[in-house]
């Protein structure tokens, strides 16, 4: 066993968030190991997006710790100074939004969108930035001649793939995804899932994927967490949870999937 596998990449302990008197998510704890993909499923309003925002540092939780492996030691990201946290967001972390518009600069060309993270960490050679951007556009199957077009001229699926390229270009170790396939039609979804699965396996990424689509987690996730009313009601290996659901809500969720 290598040293990297002796401790988790991300350790979450007792994360709780209230919206006034109402519970957003309550007392969530789990470990995420390097190279592992974790799925979080649940119905709308179950607190899965709140949890993801708390983990990614977009929302301050009321209680709990989110420890991330920084240079070999686990550090509570909620205690990091703001420059350290923003650096983490530019380098080791990535966030794929449900709506590509939230994660892209719509007034900047596709190449510029991908290059932004490189320039943010100090790349100052135009030729190198451009060739890396071209390489990543190619990997997410965006044609090279679209490189100088703005994302406003792209279809929904292309925008989502562009957002993924923009996030992965700096080689992050942990990717947060909020409904990455939401709002796309099924054939485009299938392509995007294929692409994501390839990239995750190839780069050895760890990822946390929030979705309400069980097919997505079946394809991508190693482990699964089921949430209801802000609480985790069941977690385990994906196939185990989906094929032999124990909790009543999970059983309902699995049986609700339409069979074609």
């Amino acid at each position: 066993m290598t040293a990297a596998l002796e401790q988790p990449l991300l350790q979450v302990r007792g994360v709780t968030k209230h919206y006034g008197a109402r519970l957003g998510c309550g007392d969530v704890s789990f470990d995420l190991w390097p190279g592992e993909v974790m799925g979080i499923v649940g119905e709308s309003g179950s607190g899965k997006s709140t949890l993801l925002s708390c983990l990614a540092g977009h929302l301050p939780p009321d209680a709990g710790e989110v420890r991330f492996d920084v240079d070999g030691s686990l550090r509570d990201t909620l205690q990091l100074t703001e420059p350290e946290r923003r650096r983490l967001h530019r380098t080791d972390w990535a966030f794929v939004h449900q709506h590509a518009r939230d994660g892209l600069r719509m007034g900047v060309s596709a190449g510029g969108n991908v290059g932004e993270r490189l320039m943010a960490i100090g790349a100052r050679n135009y030729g190198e930035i451009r060739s890396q951007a071209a390489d990543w556009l190619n990997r997410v199957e965006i044609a090279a001649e679209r490189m100088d077009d703005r994302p406003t001229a792209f279809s929904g699926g292309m925008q989502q793939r562009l957002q993924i390229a923009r996030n992965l270009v700096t080689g992050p170790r942990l990717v947060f995804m909020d409904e990455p396939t939401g709002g796309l039609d099924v054939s485009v979804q299938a392509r995007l899932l294929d692409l994501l699965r390839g990239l995750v396996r190839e780069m050895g990424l760890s990822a946390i994927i929030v979705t309400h689509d069980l097919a997505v987690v079946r394809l991508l996730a190693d482990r699964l967490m089921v949430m209801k009313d802000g609480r985790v009601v069941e977690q385990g290996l994906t196939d185990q949870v989906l094929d032999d659901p124990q909790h009543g809500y999970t059983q309902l969720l699995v049986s609700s999937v339409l069979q074609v």
Partner: protein
Amino acid sequence: MTADQYNFAYLDEQTKRMIRRAILKGLAVPGYQVPFASREMPMPYGWGTGGVQVTAATLVPDDRLKVIDQGADDTTNAVSIRKFFERTAGVAVTEATTEASIIQTRHRIPETPLREGQILVYQVPIPEPLRFLEPRETETRKMHALEEYGLMHVKLYEDIARHGTIATAYAYPVQVEGRYVMDPSPIPKFDNPKLESPAIQLFGAGREQRIYALPPYTQVVSLDFEDHPFDPSRADYPCAVCGAVDSYLDEVITDDAGGRMFLCSDTDYCGQRQAAGHTGTEGAP
């Protein structure tokens, strides 16, 4: 109201103290935008209300003031601001760069090199260099505080991707002493190398309520890429009136058949050269 009923240089003494404090802070932190309580001035926003307030706070009775607008001493904006201070402060005025102790400028740096002891006051429309990329003021302040300037290069990247070269020709962003990224006001990028100067340079933005400053001999670097270095470009002609080949030129359309001529935008510099006997193709013999 007659001229002697104005306080010296129009503004009241408390306001001038407040502006001087902002100027001193700006000089202490070169390139940092200091907020100040900008006053209503008897002129519209966009006509130099920021520059006028900085000049008013800096003037003393034995100063000699020069005002230029796009390099020229004789355009509306320059003439009216010069008259304004002649009337409200009673200071001496001049059109010669070498004789002036304070120069208020709109969008140019004089061709004649400035010397120690002179003060150059810029009129600034939008002081925030990141504004067109990031509309949130809270975010741009944070970016300045944490030195996150990658976004500025995204703008230059877009220029090259679209035009093959950095097409930003004015208000070209600079980094001051390796720290703050600053908008040098809409001067042509031809003037950027002159920002490293023995004179004090003060920038006033009236509507946006910001003052920033460059102390003498401050390092000012124009941003660029390693493989697309900064180029202070200039129209490739001599001045038609004085024959200068080292000055920034205005293009003047002379007829509707494509006729044009190029002449110095700095009227004082052009005049000095003509007085010294230089002539161009269109100059009077």
